[in-house]
């Protein structure tokens, strides 16, 4: 049966298979990258430089993806605890000797480059949970759930201390997805949620310091900083809203072309997209992301073992969470967190991390179960 299939496949597809890449996922990602270049060209006011630099980053990202795709899930599983340990150590190092950049301590100066360890944890944390649960019978016991929660909480607390509440929540949710997909009992989930609801006010009134409360308040209510992120959100909403159903047309967004938008090539790139391509364009973009998610979940469900399944599943869901948080943020639905629009926003770090994640998915896909049981 496999021989028959193989004969039908064209040469490019066979080449991709040999490279351990999934053609459909690659196609969808390629579409996102093309879109990224188009919107960046417009956001940069017709400046090709920005696009060229993004293309270089995509090149690096594809290289990373290709490299990671060659690593078998088995090897990934063996390395998981070490990657996690190194990541957490680096977070501790940042806390002790880190370089302060953009008002928060997030960077580690390695001499030749500056490095953001919290980015590593976005993958390392779910890997660690998948590693821990992967060898155990599922669904996890209460004890296993508690151990998993410790694995999740340690990096979260360290990142929160930087302070980077947004990233901490993203790292936490990525790892939590692995736990959820492993079959975390719904009763425990509800109990935990209930406990958190009770604990929150107690923490607020009796445990947290004033400066910590202030951080949470600024996070939840950017309007309290009208010259900072509040201004961004207002401008962004005007951009998106004024796009209307059909949009103002590519390169025609007055908000973006007149440079009113903040960070319009990075976190706020969707505002440019929404203004220029309207509701119809936005719908198509959402559809594209849903297709990526669907393909990723499909790959996850055909993984060869429990570890690969949990890892692939959590990466897929995390990818979608980024999308949701980003668009929710620029459209004024969610607080402002520094989350880029996955694969579209300008910027190196996030694209490389995402590409590494997709590399793992490719690897999982290339090593799927031989027979569908």
């Amino acid at each position, binding site marked *: 049966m496999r021989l028959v299939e193989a004969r039908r496949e064209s040469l490019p597809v066979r080449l991709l298979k040999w490279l351990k890449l999934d053609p459909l996922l690659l196609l969808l990602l390629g579409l996102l990258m093309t879109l990224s270049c188009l919107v960046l060209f417009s956001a940069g006011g017709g400046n090709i430089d920005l696009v060229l630099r993004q293309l270089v980053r995509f090149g690096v990202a594809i290289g990373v993806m290709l490299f990671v795709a060659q690593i078998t899930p088995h090897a990934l599983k063996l390395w998981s605890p070490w990657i996690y340990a190194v990541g957490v150590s680096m977070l501790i190092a940042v806390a002790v000797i880190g370089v302060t950049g953009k008002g928060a301590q997030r960077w580690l100066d390695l001499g030749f480059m500056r490095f953001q360890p919290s980015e590593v944890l976005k993958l390392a944390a779910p890997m660690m949970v998948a590693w821990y649960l992967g060898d*155990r*019978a*599922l*669904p996890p*016991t209460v004890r296993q759930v508690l151990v998993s929660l410790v694995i999740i909480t340690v990096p979260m607390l360290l990142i929160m201390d930087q302070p980077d509440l947004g990233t901490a929540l993203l790292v936490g949710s990525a790892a939590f*997805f692995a736990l*959820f*997909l*492993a*079959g975390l009992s719904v009763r425990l989930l509800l109990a935990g949620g209930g406990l958190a609801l009770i604990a929150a006010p107690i923490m607020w009134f009796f445990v947290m310091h004033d400066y910590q409360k202030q951080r949470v308040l600024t996070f939840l209510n950017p309007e309290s900083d009208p010259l900072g992120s509040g201004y961004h959100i207002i*401008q962004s*909403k*005007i*951009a*998106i*809203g*004024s*796009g*209307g*159903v059909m949009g103002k047309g590519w390169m025609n967004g*007055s*908000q973006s*072309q*007149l*440079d*009113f938008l903040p960070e319009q090539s990075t976190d706020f790139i969707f505002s440019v997209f*929404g203004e220029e391509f*309207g*509701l119809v364009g*936005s*719908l198509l973009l*959402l559809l594209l*992301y*849903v297709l990526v*998610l*669907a393909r990723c*979940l499909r790959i*996850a*469900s055909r993984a060869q073992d*429990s570890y690969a*399944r*949990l890892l692939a*599943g959590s990466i897929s*869901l995390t990818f*979608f969470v980024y999308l*949701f948080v980003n*668009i*929710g943020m620029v*459209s004024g*639905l969610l607080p402002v967190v520094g989350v880029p629009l996955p694969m579209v926003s300008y910027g190196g770090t996030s694209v490389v991390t995402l590409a590494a994640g997709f590399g793992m998915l490719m690897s999982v896909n290339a090593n799927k179960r031989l027979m569908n*049981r």
Partner: protein
Amino acid sequence: MARRRARLRNPDMEIRLFKGRALFAGVVCLLLAATLFGRLAWLQFFQYDNYQEQSQDNRVRVRPIPPTRGLIFDRNGQLLADNRPSYQLEITPELVEDMDALLAQLESVVSISDQERTRFKQGLYRQRRGSYKGVPLKFNLAPEQLAAIAVDLHRYPGVSIEARLNRFYPDHGTAVHTVGYVGRVDERDLERLEKRAYQGTTHTGKAGIERHYEDLLHGEVGFEQVEVNVQGRALRVLDQQKPEPGANLYLSLDLGMQRVAERAFGEEAGALVAMDPRTGEILAMASMPTYDPNSFVNGISVKDYAALRDGFYRPLFNRALTGQYPPGSTVKPFYGLGALEEGVNTQGKKIRCIGYYQLPNEDHRYRCWKKHGHGRLDLDQSIAQSCDIFFYDLAHRMGIQKMHDYLAPFGFGRELGIDTLGEEGGLLPSPEWKRRARNRPWYPGETLIAGIGQGYFLATPLQLAVATSALAMDGAVPKPHLLQRVEHADGRVEHHSTEPMGQVEVKQQRHWEYIKKSMEHVVHHRRGTAYWNVGVNSEYRFAGKTGTAQVFSVAQDEEYDEELVEKRLRDHALFVSWAPVDDPQIVVAVIVENGGHGSSVAAPIAKQVMDYHLLGEAP
């Protein structure tokens, strides 16, 4: 219970479990995507009109258009302060990634002096972040510099060349103390000025007329609605409300006379005030040395400013209004009038000058400037020959309080309220003043020195001119002023004139004639102190009074330049005069610092100015 002990793995079950969970998560994700879509539909469909409107508003910015500053002319329409177009190099810091690199690049095209660099750095520091305003780097670009930069402008993001109207003083130092100068608006100015009206205005009056009549000169700010990007770069003008230019001011100054006056001083330091005694209009007001106000317009370096401020002659100091000097013998006619009025001296009564004067019961000899004495002379000749002994005697008999009371109505000892800044009031001594200021009683000897305009007595050149005017005009004390007429932007012309400040009343009108005659004798009598220097060859008859002020007496005063006292101990030379004697048209008061004798140094300067006015002669 068995589950816990031997948890055998069931791969199929685990896969089913995962698929169930993944499906659930997928559905949740779909719901989230639907939420996003709903949110976007809300913004882009239901709220579209609202945001569309806001987007329009966003493009449109209201920007102030600074008004054109009014010009300043002399009485004959000669320009004193002009606006000249100039090009300046500006950098918008928000658009520059690496400022040092950019400056280095620019430096290869145009020279950037240390002063320009420092001033630019200060400008950068002062500007609020995110205001997207250009900070000027170089002013008054020369044509070749302009061309060199303009060609490559696209290579330097954030760099722009702006055309601005720059204040320019075509005669440089001439009348600088009167006209003043403008400078860039700084924080202290903003505390004083109305913020709304000064949006977009870069310069404001800092001294002299430029500052005193700032409200008239500035004009009304205008506004334009422009489509801008966030850099504030205007793409299109949508609507405009034109600014109203400032009014043009015509001063009473005569630029030609001012030039004559300043030239007449040569290298000497001092001051001159020429005014029309009938109207109070200031015709010329000089303070020497001068300086070039153009160097202040776009900011003077700290070093250059310090050199001006602390220089030997202190050029920034407006001697005509702020300089307080002992008036010396120039006050004798005023005391003479008082003596006549009081009957202390009657016309024709003579005393003998033997070269010194002694108070009863005192050994101290108060000397006359003429060592061996003038012999017998009356009041008329005492003024003409400036005998000190006569006035010691007069002062002794009149007493300090009466001396004070007779001089006060002439404007001594108080500010006269001329329409510019920096006027000082001088000091007309009295026992009451001394008690208040020094907490000391008045000594009889001090009365004598006050009688010859020395001691505590201080007057500004302006006060001397005004008081002399009052003598010339039989007691009408003119109110000095500089502004003659205002030409508003709408063409309306407003004339400014002032009423006399007061009238010095006398019991007998002939006392005026007596004193005026004695002052004519100063110039035209063969024994008059100014006869040989200026009177003998004069084509018209005029009146005057010489004065010589001892610098020693100045040393007690804190205000006056101590350096000069140390280095140059020569007396100050003074001369006050009016002409023609019977029909006063011009009053001139001159002081030449450390000039020596009033007759030989100060009087010729006054004569040149009067010649110019009456004969039209420019020497």
